[in-house]
């Protein structure tokens, strides 16, 4: 886990330097450049996404970001972003399936509906999407040699022109600048990955019905019986807040969660609520991937909650000190509802695939 802090430190370092570079080299639509603005598709009842002025979405930026996302040219170990955020697997992958050492990396999050996140990383250590990828050049991820990366990019027949187009008038092939420009383009691409084509969405639009089992699960989810909606509510299926859901009774390392970012006692063991969209496809679960199946997750909420000083008040319902006390049938129905949140179209949507 120490290595992760190295990444975070690297990140902090670049953030610290950000002011020197961003203002002068960030493209703005008003600088007369020929960039084509891109309008993000906002599904019904989704709130306004977080789209920063300093990195506006453009067709050219997204095209560059998409190419970089799938390109191992950025690394010295053959990895690309897609190595860990694999489209066919819901833009994530199980740590052990790609041989990542157990416990060294957090569970890899699925990159969907990222444009609506106010924070990034399980503990919200990254305040925006635009700088997340800077840390990926570090030894734990790409182990990049920036001099080599720059040489390879410069030698490529098309990259120099693409970068020039997206970041006009800037010399991006400079150590420190390159990482930030790459991260900006990647963030643009990642923000375009929108998942809103599940059975549940079709049900909400009146195009299909839920089965009686799914409908019962929806009721459990949306009432105080299961009480999932307080944190996984509305159309994003996350409140984007930080909560301690009682996974642990002692906290160390990454399990300290938000505390590692704020240092405040009230944040011990709190993690950002993940979306439940596509959760059927994105096992394992939780920040450390401790649960392999949705049944295990439901059983956690049903009977495995540890009560500690920072446990979310919502998790201590009256008469539920013993857990939710769901019957086996109810657990199955709750799971049936979670399965209606699956959107298989993003797994093969050509808009997001390897160019």
């Amino acid at each position, binding site marked *: 886990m120490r290595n992760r802090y190295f990444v975070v430190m690297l990140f902090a370092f670049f953030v610290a330097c950000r002011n020197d570079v961003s203002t002068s080299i960030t493209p703005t639509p008003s600088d007369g450049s020929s960039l084509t603005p891109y309008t993000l598709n906002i599904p*019904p*009842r989704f709130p306004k996404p977080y789209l920063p002025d300093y990195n506006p979405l453009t067709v050219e930026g997204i095209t560059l970001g998409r190419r970089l996302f799938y390109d191992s040219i950025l690394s010295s170990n053959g990895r690309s972003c897609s190595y860990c955020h694999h489209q066919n697997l819901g833009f994530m992958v199980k740590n052990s399936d790609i041989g990542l050492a157990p416990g060294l990396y957090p569970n890899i999050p699925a990159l969907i509906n990222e444009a609506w996140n106010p924070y990034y990383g399980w503990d919200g250590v990254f305040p925006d999407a635009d700088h997340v990828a800077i840390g990926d050049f570090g030894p734990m991820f790409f182990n990049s040699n920036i001099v080599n990366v720059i040489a390879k990019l410069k030698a490529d027949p098309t990259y120099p022109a693409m970068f020039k187009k997206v970041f006009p008038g800037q010399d991006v092939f400079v150590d420190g600048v390159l990482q930030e420009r790459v991260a900006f383009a990647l963030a643009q691409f990642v923000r375009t990955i929108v998942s809103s084509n599940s059975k549940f969405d079709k049900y909400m639009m009146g195009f299909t019905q839920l089965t009686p089992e799914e409908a019962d699960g929806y009721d459990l989810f949306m*009432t105080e019986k299961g009480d999932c909606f307080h944190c996984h509510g509305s159309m994003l299926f996350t409140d984007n807040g930080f909560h301690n859901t009682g996974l642990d009774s002692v906290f160390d390392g990454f399990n300290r969660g938000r505390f590692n970012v704020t240092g*405040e006692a009230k944040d011990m063991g709190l993690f950002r609520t993940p979306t439940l969209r596509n959760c059927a496809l994105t096992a394992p679960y939780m920040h450390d991937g401790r649960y392999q199946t949705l049944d295990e997750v439901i059983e956690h909420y049903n009977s495995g909650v540890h009560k500690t000083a920072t446990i979310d008040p*919502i998790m201590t319902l009256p008469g539920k000190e013993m857990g939710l006390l769901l019957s086996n049938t109810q657990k199955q129905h709750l799971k049936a509802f979670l399965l209606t949140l699956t959107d298989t179209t993003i797994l093969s949507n050509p808009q997001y695939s390897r160019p």
Partner: protein
Amino acid sequence: MKGIYYFLFVVSILASCRKDTTESPLPVVTSGNLNITMAYRFDSSMLQTDTIKYKNAAGYKMSITRLQYYLSNFKFLNSDGSTYSINQVCYLDAKDPNFSNIKFTDVPLGNYKGLSFTIGLDTSINKTYYLPATVENNNMEWPPAMGGGYHFMKLEGYFVDTSGTWGYNMHLGNNGTAVAVSLANKPFSITQTPSNIQLKMNISEWFKNPSVYDFNIDGVFSMGNMAAMLKLKNNGSDVFND
């Protein structure tokens, strides 16, 4: 439900445009702006969130970790007995500086002797998807399966009794539980320069006057428990009394 989904979506868009009343510009200034700053206390102490240091009427030490709510239905009382009504729903969050102020523009100039408003939403607008789909409104949704509409208030934290520390969730919602607040004696003037007033909520009052709310008797989780919510509602009308 889902059939009216798009309809409600459109309604909510229209609702968010409601403020565009067209008035022909007048050469004489007849209106001004009012800024209301929200403040919070627990009896005589200014609110400090996330620390178990307050004692409620039932005798429990307690903390506040979340306080989010709506104010709506503002009416300003003129000295002649008439009122000026404002059709605006205000979301407030005691922990978020972005939601600790209310701004009213184009209020007729004059001396007002007081104001009244609702904690929560009127029945006519307490409908699922009525409000624009902001992050805050979406997080205040009250599931259709529990009656629909929105939470009027989420007040959460911890309290300590002889057996340990427990969470409490005072969630108010459902038609019939909105709280009417009348501050007939809170004079303020609207002038050409923006005016400021402060509304201070005494959180302690949710748990007393007229009846003591005891977490262990009345429940730590009010959502879906009409008796608990009505008790809070009845206690709530004086939370903004100075």
